[in-house]
C-alpha cells in the first residue's frame, strides 16, 4: 500500500515537473509547479514529516506560488511565449543523458551494495509540530532568530526595490 502511494506521488511529481520545463508560458509553468509541490507534500507526509508536509502546502504551494502568479499578472506579458535558448535541444538531450547515466549508476550501486536501508519504525512523535518546534526553540534557537532577521531584510529589500522611484526633479 505504501509502495503504491509512493509510486503514484512519484510519477505525479516527475510528470508535472516535466510539464513545467516543457511549457513556454509562465502561467502554465506556475500551475505545474503547484502540482509538483503538492505531490512532494504527499511524499513528506509518507516520510512521517507532518509539519514539513503542511508547511510545503502553506508556504510553497500557497504563499510563494501566489507571489509568482501575482508577478506574472503584474508584468502582463500578454500571451507572449517565452523563448528557449538557442541550443535548448542539446541542453535537453544532455539532461536526458545525465539522468540516464545517473539511473544506471544508482541501479548498479544498489545491486553492488546489497539491500538498502528500508524504513525502520520511528517514534510516533517523529516529525510532529511539537517535536520539530522543540528542536527549533532549543538546539536551533540562534538560527531561528537569524532566519527571522533574514525575512525582515528580504521584506524591506523587496519593498525598496519594487516601489516606484520618487521623482526628485519636480520638487
Amino acid at each position, binding site marked *: 500500500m505504501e509502495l503504491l502511494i509512493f509510486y503514484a506521488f512519484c510519477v505525479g511529481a516527475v510528470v508535472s515537473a516535466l510539464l513545467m520545463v516543457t511549457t513556454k508560458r509562465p502561467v502554465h509553468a506556475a500551475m505545474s509547479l503547484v502540482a509538483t509541490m503538492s505531490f512532494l507534500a504527499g511524499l513528506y507526509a509518507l516520510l512521517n514529516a507532518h509539519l514539513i508536509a503542511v508547511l510545503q502546502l502553506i508556504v510553497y504551494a500557497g504563499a510563494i506560488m501566489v507571489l509568482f502568479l501575482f508577478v506574472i499578472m503584474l508584468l502582463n506579458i500578454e500571451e507572449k511565449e517565452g523563448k528557449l535558448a538557442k541550443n535548448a535541444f542539446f541542453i535537453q538531450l544532455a539532461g536526458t543523458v545525465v539522468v540516464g547515466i545517473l539511473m544506471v549508476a544508482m541501479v548498479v550501486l544498489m545491486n553492488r551494495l546489497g539491500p538498502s536501508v528500508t524504513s525502520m519504525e520511528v517514534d510516533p512523535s*517523529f*516529525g510532529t509540530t511539537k517535536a520539530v518546534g522543540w528542536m527549533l526553540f532549543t538546539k536551533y534557537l540562534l538560527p531561528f532568530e537569524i532566519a527571522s532577521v533574514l525575512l525582515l531584510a528580504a521584506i524591506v529589500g523587496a519593498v525598496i526595490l519594487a516601489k516606484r522611484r520618487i521623482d526628485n526633479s519636480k520638487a
Partner: protein
Amino acid sequence: MVSLNAYLMLGAVLFTIGAVGVLAHRNALIIYMCIELMLNAVNLTIVAYSRFLNSLDGHVYVFMIMTVAAAEAAVGLAILIALFRNKPTVDVDEIHLSKG
C-alpha cells in the same frame, strides 16, 4: 516498504529536471520556478535522510531552506519588477546590464 534509494533517485531526477530548465529557458520567471524546483528536490533528499537516520535535525534544515527560498523569491521578483520598469522584457538574453 519504500527504500531510501527510491527517494534519493526521485530527488536526483527532479533536481536534474530543474537544472535543465534553468539552462534551456530564457524567460526569467520560468528560470526562478526551476530554481524553486531544485530547492524542493534537495528538501526531499534531506527529509528522506532524516527519516531513515531517525534524526529530526533534517526537518529543521528544511525549515531553514524554506525560509531562505521565500526570501529569495520575494527579493528576486522585486528585482524583476524593477528591471521590467526600465526595459519591458523578461528575456534574460536582452537583460545584460552587467555584461562588460
